[in-house]
């Protein structure tokens, strides 16, 4: 009788151990995915930082009177490169997005610039990179949301607490309007 209970307890303990392994592994898997998603954003952000000097260089000649706008873009870029934590980064990048937008608004006013294929293709590249950033952010936030949920729900939260998994920050968006469906211009 005692042996029976002992075996049952042992089996239960073993089962618990297996479950622990399983939960731990799935947490690790999720964490790797979140890291991967983050590196996706990083790649795109870096690409944008690389493109900006080219853009500034090719519009500089046309826009002698718009020095302020150009300087703001350059400053925002330096800030974005220097930012380290996810929170700082998302703030700096949002600021950079805004300054770029105002730059493109200015470009619209210069017919010479608009007819310049070089500027146009740089603009297309930057638009594309910006879309990629927002898609990568979407992917990162999706994965982070799933990971954060997994850490907080019972019973995985016990494993997460024991093994030291902590919540991740979302990559926040500056203004709400930005993420609403892009309006199609007719």
């Amino acid at each position, binding site marked *: 009788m005692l042996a029976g209970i002992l075996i049952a307890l042992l089996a239960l303990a073993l089962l618990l151990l297996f479950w622990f392994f399983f939960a731990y592994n799935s947490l690790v898997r999720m964490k790797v*995915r979140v890291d*991967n*998603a983050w590196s*996706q954003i990083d*790649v*795109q952000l870096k*690409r944008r930082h*690389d493109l900006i000097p080219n853009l500034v260089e090719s519009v500089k000649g046309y826009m002698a009177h718009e020095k302020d706008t150009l300087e703001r873009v350059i400053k925002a870029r330096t800030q974005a490169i220097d930012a380290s934590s996810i929170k700082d980064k998302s703030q700096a990048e949002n600021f950079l997005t805004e300054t770029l937008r105002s730059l493109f608004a200015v470009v619209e006013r210069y017919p010479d610039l*608009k*007819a*310049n*294929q*070089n500027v*146009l*293709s740089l603009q*297309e*590249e930057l638009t*594309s990179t910006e*879309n*990629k950033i927002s*898609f*990568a952010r*979407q*992917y990162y936030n*999706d*994965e982070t949301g*799933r990971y954060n949920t997994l850490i907080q729900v019972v019973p995985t939260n016990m494993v997460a607490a024991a093994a030291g998994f902590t919540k991740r920050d979302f990559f926040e968006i500056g203004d709400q309007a930005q*993420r609403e*469906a*892009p309006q*199609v*211009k*007719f």
Partner: protein
Amino acid sequence: MPFSFIDIEEKKTRLLGLLFFFVILFYFLTAYLLLVIVRHSFFQRDGFAWPSGTATAAVLGVAFFVALLHWATSTSHLIEKLSLSIGAIELDERDVYHKGLQNIIDEVSVAIGGRRIQGMVIPSVSLNAFALEDFQGQAVIGVTEGLLTRLNRAQLEAVVGHEAGHIAGGDCLSTTVTCALAELYDEMFSRLKIGMQRSRGRGGVLVLVLFLIVFFMRFLSMLLRYFISRQKEYRADAVSVRLTRNPLSLAEALSLISTNWRGSGAAGERLESIFIINPNLSRLDEHQGLFSDVFSTHPPIGDRIRILTEMAHLDKKTLEDNLKKFRWVSPVAQAEFKEAQKEGPRSWSVFMDQEWRGPFGLEELSKIAGMAPEMWVRPEGAEKVIHAYEDKVLMPLFSPEAKNKASGKDLACPHCRTSLEELFYEGVPVLKCSHCEGVFAPGRKVSRLLIRRDKTFDEETIRLGQMTIRERDKRIDGLYRQKAANAWFLDCPQCGRKMRRQFFVYSYPVEIDRCVFCEGIWFDRQELEVLQYIYENKEQFFDDSSF
């Protein structure tokens, strides 16, 4: 329930196993049926008996073997084969429109976790899009040239999102494989048809028997594709909305595609399953119910649009009004001839002797001993490491032929003998003579120039175009009477052989010079514009728009 695209990946294998099982079952049932019929009609005229266990096992073995053979032949070089049969070609990386498409594809691929997807294009005016995937994980999204010129960026992104939904959702691979399996018999069938005509009775019986067998198998394999659920289109629509958060653009795109020519009658229409909307008009597609659920490949288009517009909190009427007001915006700054974008001096890092060296310019690279095509290089500024042979600019390093071409003179104008300048026209890189204003375009670029509509025409072009159509009969007559010396007048700038002076086609009687070897076309001044004008206003000139 799968939570993410990565979970879906793991489900794919099971689906393919099921598909393979179906192929075996298909051959087994066919062979078994044949066995029963043959036995019953030739050997056991009185009384019916099922074949013995051994016979059944033998049939099963043969069926397994044939299925394996069929599977192996169909699924090797999947993407190459299928893209060939629908006439899709790789993107021209210098073309403005094509670059935009690849950008959109790259964007969407980031949204599904950053997997590399190649872009392709079908040089056709029709509106459609497709996705392919093979066992190695290589994926392709392709659209028609017509789609590129009719949809705006947001709509194109929604369509690409839909196709990416097929790839990420895991149904693209099984669809591609199913299409490839059915394609084998289609191809055999068309080849045998030609063979039948050629043999003219010689060995006729054998060919006829073969023909009948293939015909039968083709019919059966057509049933295979009904294995593909039409529900996958709804799912891909949903994924597209989830990725782009823009149901309205997808609804608009679907509406535009469904109200235009989708490419029926063009090559590869039987591979309907891989397209976003069935290229063939099918009454079955528009119906609900069990029968059409089983025997159609696409769900009712009206239903798809309704779901999407509801997501955007709009009704059908607003969508139609929007589309009526819709004006397409060209991604090209100006349709006129624009100077090509000058590329700065490029440089590459090279992986040599177990370490990365460089970056070097092209000049320095040519001096390095031991450069080989299969060596790893990283173009400066790029993330990806590639083989040296993948970069066209590096080719002169390895092939003397390419070296001559690169260092040799630019192509020369056949009239003035001055070198031609590369310029962008409607986003297509073409060669133009600055002196006589003639234009040379390789054959595959001409279709692009005709399909695109960035160019607006001046009065002279319109007058010339209308005159050309009015004097069509006279012109055709005149061309017949011209002397042979005039007919073979110019040298092809590309291959140096004589070009033939002829009409572009008889419906558009614009005289051009066509190289019969490389299919390049030389347009004298204004010939290209006049041809474009006639092509883009063909409804006005011809009552029958089938021209």
